[in-house]
Each structure stands twice: as C-alpha cells, then as structure tokens.
C-alpha cells in the first residue's frame, strides 16, 4: 500500500546541511502494522513527516520515491496532498495537549476535518463528530464535544487527536510516539484503542517509537533505524529475540525487562561481574506520618497523606507511582527542599524536618543527603562549566579551594566516567549522558549517605540509560550509599532496588521486597501497573 524507495531528507541549518534520513526503503501492506524503532536523532520521525510532506521549514526531500496506492506522493500537488492527508493517511503525535488547538472546542476540531474531506455537511457535522468521538471510546461524547483541550486529561486529549485522525476513516495511520508523556496505564489504554481500531477497520499503521516493548507488543513487522539508515528489518517475533545487527542487539540488551540483570543491559563485551552492596539492619532514614498540603483554589489539596517508611543503611528503596501520586513531593521533602506540613523525618535518629528548608543549607546533615535530578539539562546552570557544577558543593560546604579542589573534581570525573577534557565545557556542549554524569558527580562529591534519584534516566536513550544505571550500581557498592530511587518505570526499579513502595494519590498502597511485590503483585493497583507496562521479549542468549 505504501512504498518508500531510497528516501533521503536533508535540513539546512546554520552549521550547514544535516542529512536526517539517508536513503531508506520500506513498505507497509494493507492492514499491516509496521514499527519504526530508533533512539533520538535516528530520523524515524522525519521519515514520516517527509512522506506526509509536512517537513518543517528548511527540510527537503532530496532523493527517492514515495508511492501510496499508486499515487506518487513526492510528485503530487499540494492540493492533492491535502486531500490525501486526513482522508487516506493520518497522523497522531506525542504531547497530545499541544497537538490540539487550545482555543477551539474539540468537537469543532473534529468537524473541521469531516467538513474538509466532505464527510459531513454543516447540518450533520455535529452528529458525525460526536460519533467519531464515540468511536474512540470517549464516554459522554456529546458533553465532551463542547470541551476545550485544557479541560481534558492528557489521555483524553490523545483520544481526541486519534478521533481527528480517524474521523475520515483513513487507510494508513502514522503514530509518532503516541504514548510518550502519558502514564503507564493511560499508555496501555491508548495503544489498545489504536490497535483495536486498526484491526476493526483493516487499517495499516506505522508506529514510531523508542520503546522496544511497545513495538514488539503492537507491531507485525519492525525496522530499526540509526543515524538516518535502516540497520535491520524483520518480523516482530524474530527481530528482537534473534537480532542480527550489532546495533539492534545493543538496543535489545539495553532495554530493561523481566529477568534481566543490571549488567546484562550492557553490551556483552563490556560486562563485568555485578558488585555486591551490603544492606545493614540499622535504619538510616525513618519517615513518620509525613503530610504535605498545598493551598488550592477549591480548598487545600493533600499531595502526601501521612506516609511512613524506612530506608536502612546501604539499602536501595524504589518509589513507584504515576503522575500525581506524590512521589516527587515526597522525595523533595526528604531531601529538604520542601517543608512537610506535618510529620517527622529522622536521619540517623535525629529529626531533620524541624529545620526549615530555607535554613537547611547550614545543617550538619546537608552533606549527607544529596540528590540527582530528573532533567540533567535543567539541573546544570547554563552559565557554569561542568567543573564548576561539580566543585560547587565542595567549595560551599567543605570550603575546599584551589589545587585541592580541582584535584577532587578530576577524581570525581574519573569516578563517574566523565572524560577530563569535558570538565571545561558548558552544559550545551555536552550530550545528555554526559550531563547525567556531571549531575551524579556533583551529587556524590560530598560522599553522602543517602542519595535521592528522581527519575535520573527518564530523558535518556536506552543505551545511555543502561550505562548510567550500571554506574549507579558501581557507585553504590563502592561508597555504601543508600538510594531512594523515584521512578515510573517498574522494570528499572526491579533491576536496582532492594525494596519498593508503590504510591497512589498520596498514599503508599503497596510495599515490600522488590521481588515479592513485582513478581507476585498482591495489590490490584500494583498488578494494573505491571500489566500495563509493555514487556520487551527476551533475547536469545548471545
């Protein structure tokens, strides 16, 4: 149905031309779901924009043919393309809230497409739009018709985007990272919906994703892209269980999954034995009845509703939950960036919650509790070098100066595997993985006893994530730190943590040793989370 031959796309930028896609060929059959998998910068999204001819300014198709049902899409006039878009080929995007016009009622946005493609007249548009909303399983569609995007949840917005895309019953749907930014349970609901609609209508689909689990679960055939080229292509079952290309193998290995060990995420040739970390019985941190209340428009909102837990010396505790569960608020209170409304935080037996966060920088325990932030880019001052970021806690708290300070900074850089020459660089000159290492080096500079890790790998590609997770495991064994590991990714928590807490709406709903909680989930919410997480297939041993 769709065939791409030797497509290449280039962008004009200030630094010259960038070849985003360099001669790829692929086909999608009727009713088939093709997955395009790759890390950031692989050219997977650009490919789809190119075939829809909606490339951003400066982007240009250089060579190749794109044919859809016998029509040459590259030669087609803009007018013909407009008839094809939305009628024959549709697209859905990541970040659904931004993908909708913020000041137009969602029902009208669906109508616009129906009327444009002559699927409805002004008279019956409303009824048909509501029907389209019902097709994507929106409850009470007639009421939602009048809503604006800002009044709807992210998952609901994605359903609207899908309704717009599918309103005119296209034959091919391109889904560009449709679940990025959504919670796990919402993710599953959205993907199941798209999958079911595709099957029901015999619609072909291209699923563009960085998530191997998602691709293997929903696709018939998968291509793997890297640096604008297709490195491997194959049927869903075979590609991941028996990858032929080294890059595919690396991707498959690096994806956290059931039964993997932390070392098995790394390429086979660099695996070393996993170091042991000792968990003591003495508690390092005891949290008791912690409550955080925010003032809200409609009365106070309780973000954390009286939770209690312990972290033992040397232990790694996972804190799992979806957005709005209160997990980030909890971690910020523990690291003393926020003050709890009530409750105690005991560190080595002493209450540290009684010192307000505004004065905590002079507290003796400040050096013992440090944090690695979620977004490595955001956590580095854009006007400071990597070295100055790492040196900051040493200079402020240890009053270290001069040669001693720079020696310690170099030492820390070695410890986190950051090449020395990069120390003089500014954040915008570093890659995501390098910035993550700088953030870790800064956090461990004072050799803290407790390190809070707030989704430290959420913004990283899987292959980089594998390296960073292994670094964290090594550091833990070397320095005997305790971790409070905050994450939404259960597979990552399983790899790294001794015990796990599951939070929902400010309460801890499930807790226990990681293996017990995850392998035999007793609580229905934990079970729902685990079932919703896409499971990548197990590769055949290399």
């Amino acid at each position, binding site marked *: 149905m769709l065939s791409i031959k030797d497509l290449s796309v280039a962008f004009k930028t200030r630094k010259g031309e960038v070849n985003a896609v360099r001669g790829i060929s692929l086909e999608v059959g009727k009713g088939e779901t093709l997955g395009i998998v790759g890390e950031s910068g692989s050219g997977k999204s650009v490919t789809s924009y190119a075939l829809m001819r909606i490339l951003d300014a400066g982007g240009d198709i250089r060579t190749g043919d794109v044919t859809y049902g016998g029509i040459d899409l590259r030669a087609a006039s803009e007018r013909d393309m407009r008839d094809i878009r939305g009628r024959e080929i549709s697209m859905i995007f990541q970040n659904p809230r931004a993908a909708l016009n913020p000041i137009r009622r969602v029902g009208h946005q669906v109508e616009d497409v129906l009327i444009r493609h002559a699927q409805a007249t002004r008279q019956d548009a409303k009824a048909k739009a509501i029907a389209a909303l019902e097709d994507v399983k929106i409850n009470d569609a007639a009421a939602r018709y009048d809503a604006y995007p800002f009044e709807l949840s992210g998952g609901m917005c994605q359903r609207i985007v899908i309704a717009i895309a599918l309103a005119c019953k296209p034959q091919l749907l391109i889904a560009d990272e449709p679940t990025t930014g959504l919670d796990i349970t919402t993710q599953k609901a959205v993907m199941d919906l798209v999958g079911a609609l595709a099957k029901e209508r015999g619609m072909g689909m291209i699923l563009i994703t960085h998530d191997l689990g998602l691709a293997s679960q929903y696709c018939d055939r998968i291509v793997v892209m890297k640096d604008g080229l297709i490195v491997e292509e194959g049927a869903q079952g075979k590609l991941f269980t028996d990858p032929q290309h080294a890059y595919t193998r690396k991707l498959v290995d690096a994806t956290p999954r059931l039964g993997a060990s932390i070392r098995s995420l790394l390429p086979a040739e660099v695996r070393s034995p996993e170091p042991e970390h000792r968990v003591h019985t003495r508690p390092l941190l005891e949290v008791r009845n912690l409550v955080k209340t925010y003032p809200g428009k409609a009365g106070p909102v309780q973000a954390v509703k009286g939770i209690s837990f312990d972290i033992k010396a040397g232990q790694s505790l996972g804190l799992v939950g979806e957005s709005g569960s209160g997990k980030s608020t909890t971690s910020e209170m523990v690291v003393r960036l926020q003050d709890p409304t009530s409750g105690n935080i005991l560190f080595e037996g002493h209450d540290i919650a009684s010192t307000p966060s505004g004065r905590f920088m002079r507290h003796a325990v400040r050096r013992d509790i440090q944090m690695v932030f979620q977004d490595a880019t955001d956590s580095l001052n854009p*006007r400071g070098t990597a070295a100055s970021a790492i040196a900051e806690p040493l200079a402020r708290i240890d009053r270290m100066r001069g040669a001693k300070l720079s020696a310690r900074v170099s030492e820390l850089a070695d410890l986190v595997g950051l090449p020395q020459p990069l120390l003089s660089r500014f954040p915008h000159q570093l890659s995501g993985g390098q910035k993550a290492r700088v953030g870790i080096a800064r956090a461990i500079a004072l050799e803290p006893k407790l390190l809070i890790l707030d989704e430290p790998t959420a913004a990283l590609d899987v292959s980089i994530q594998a390296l960073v997770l292994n670094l964290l495991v090594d550091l833990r064994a070397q320095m005997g730190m305790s971790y409070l590991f905050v994450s939404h990714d259960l597979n990552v928590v399983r790899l790294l943590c001794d015990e796990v807490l599951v939070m929902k709406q400010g309460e801890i709903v499930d807790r226990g040793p990681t293996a017990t909680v995850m392998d035999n989930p007793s609580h229905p919410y934990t079970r729902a989370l685990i079932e919703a997480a896409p499971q990548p297939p197990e590769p055949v041993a290399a």
Partner: protein
Amino acid sequence: MVDMTTSQPKRKGDTTFGHIAYVLRDNPVTMLAFAMLAFFLGCAFFGPALVPYDPLATNAARALEAPGWDHWFGTDNLGRDVFSRVIVATRLDLTISVAAVALSFVLGSVLGSIAGYWGGWLDAVLNRFLDTIMAFPLFVLAMGVVAALGNTVENIIYATAIINIPFYARLVRAEVNIRRNAGFAQAAKLAGNSDLRVLAVHIFPNALPPMMVQVSLNLGWAILNAAGLSFIGLGVRPPTPEWGIMVAEGANFIVSGEWWLAVFPGLWLMLAVFTFNLVGDGLRDMVDPRKRT
C-alpha cells in the same frame, strides 16, 4: 559559581566570541549598528571639543542660512551653527537616557528578583504597584512627574526611570520565576547555598541576556521620551542644545520652508534611537537566534 579558571582552561571565550563573530558576519546590519553606536559614543565623549563653532554663540548677521560649506547643517534664527549644536547635544541626550535606564535597571532588577523568587505577598504588592504605574499612559505620567517635581534635567531622569521600572521589574520577575524551581537552583541549595546566594549567583545571571536586550531597546525609548518632554517645554531649557528643543524651535520655521532647523536635530535623534534599536535586535540574535522577530 566557583571560579575554576586557574586550573581549567576556559573555553567560554572561544565559543562566545565565535558566536558573536558569526552573528556579525551573518548580519551586516548588526555590524553597522555597532559601528554607529561607537560613533555616537565618540560624539558624546569628544564632540564638544571637536565642533567647529561654539554651540551657544549667536551671529545675527548669518541667521537662517541654508546648509553650506561654512555651516554644514545651516544656521538657526539666531545665527548659531546647527551642526555644532546637534553634535554637542549628543552628550546631554545620552546622559539622560543612560542615567534613567541605569536607575530603572537597578531598581527593577532588585524588585523583580525579590518578587519572582519569594513570591507571596511581596509579589502581590509589587504587582499592584507596577499595575498602578502602568495604568497611566507612560509619557503622560512622565509629564505629571516632571510638572510636580520641578522642571529640571534630574527630574527628567527620575521621571524616565520611573516609567521604565515596570518593564525591568516584570522581565526580571518572569525570568527569575521560571528558574526559581529549576533543577540547577535546587542543586545549588543542596550544595549549601543560601536562598539569597542562589538568587544572586545562580539565577539572576541567567536573566541578564534578555535584560541586556531590553536595556538597548529601552535606551532608544528613553531618548525619545526625554526629547519629547523637552519638545513640549519640560526639562532642558533653551539655549542649551538638546535635540527635542531644537526640533521644537525649528518647527516654527518649517511652514516657511527653513527645514534644516528642525530636520537635522530630528534626523540625529532618529538615528540615535535607530542605532539603539538595531543594537538591541543584534543582541537578541546573539542571545537567542530563534527569538528573532
């Protein structure tokens, strides 16, 4: 930030200057703007020493002469050399605007930083205060302030500073506010910095690039404002050479065709404002090429 210059070779110079050089090469207009800026600064510093005539010396015999070799910009109704007066006026006009902008920059930064970082009632009070200033048409407020405080050059500076404060305070407030909970600010707190230090050393410097753009655009506006006030007879008084007054005096002769009295000072004023605006646009390109509008 900790100074690591002794142990680590700084690369900032290479990249920043490389970027500036790129922007200048890419946009000759910006280069021209910086050259014009240098010219105006030169006039302000050395103008009074270099001009051919005493800007205040009258010569009734040669009144209202059209531009020629002796008098490049002609002479006015009292026979004073328009060229000398225009050049000499540069210093006064630039002084007024630079002083006013500096005042509002400092006050606005302090107010905006505090409101943006701590929020709460401080923020609410500041916002009400700024709203009230902005509730006046700004030039009209400046008129009122000068009329109330007295008709002097210092009061022109204060009035111009007052009406500019809201722009700086709001800009700084917004820039500080979006970074208040940024990862690097929180990390700085974990590294043992007090709130004040986080604000002054980590957050505020990041607000400087957009501030510099604002300063440049504002200088142009401040000159226009000061000249406008003199035009309606506030602030600077004759016979002091000042662009606004010269245009006002020359305006009476326009209807009888003696255009040079008003046109040259007006043109000079326009050129000065134009220069600051172009420099501002150039700075904006350097700070963030995407924000180019």
